[in-house]
């Protein structure tokens, strides 16, 4: 079974630029999550989708971050404009249903904002 796929794996941008990350969850997984992991910290949930609907985006900085999962399969997370403090690893995870259940994480995209 293929795991959660993410791209790109690494991205370096200058502050105020825009960036987008892509995630393809495990086939058949209805729930998709985006987490932000700042160096030295554990992952923090940004947004949770159930199929193509948003379940929880309470911790998403909506003035600069946006995410979509239009067809209920893959998803994109966008940052516009980026700030220095956005430097982090952005992890995508998926699960068959919503919690409590087993989530599978992708390898992440490491973003460096200079």
């Amino acid at each position, binding site marked *: 079974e293929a795991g959660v796929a993410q791209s790109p794996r690494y991205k370096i941008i200058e502050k105020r630029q825009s960036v987008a990350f892509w995630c393809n969850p495990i086939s058949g997984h209805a729930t998709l999550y985006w987490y932000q992991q700042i160096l030295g910290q*554990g992952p923090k949930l940004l947004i949770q989708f159930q199929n193509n609907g948003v379940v929880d985006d309470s911790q998403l900085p909506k003035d600069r971050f946006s995410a979509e999962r239009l067809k209920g399969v893959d998803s994109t997370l966008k940052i516009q404009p980026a700030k220095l403090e956005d430097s982090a690893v952005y992890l995508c995870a998926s699960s068959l249903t919503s919690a409590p259940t087993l989530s599978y*994480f992708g390898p992440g995209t490491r973003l460096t904002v200079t």
Partner: protein
Amino acid sequence: TQLLEQSPQFLSIQEGENLTVYCNSSSVFSSLQWYRQEPGEGPVLLVTVVTGGEVKKLKRLTFQFGDARKDSSLHITAAQTGDTGLYLCAAYAKGSQGNLIFGKGTKLSVKP
């Protein structure tokens, strides 16, 4: 706010030694999970503990959930270099539908 405090933050040991890492909170959780994350990879689930006082074993790893379901420990016997990684504990936020709260993790380095 539900917080998970992990200790120690860093741990460097020699191969063959035993170690214990801790995950503590003032909140009660219905379940708690332990993950291991290697550099450049996402976290991988090791175990979920559900019942207060529960002990689960995974080869050389022993996980315990506190009686009051507020804390947990992970004990590794005879550590190997392959155990090196970031160990994260996590629990679902109260009333959430999937919001996992993570501790900051314990970064373990096992030297040959």
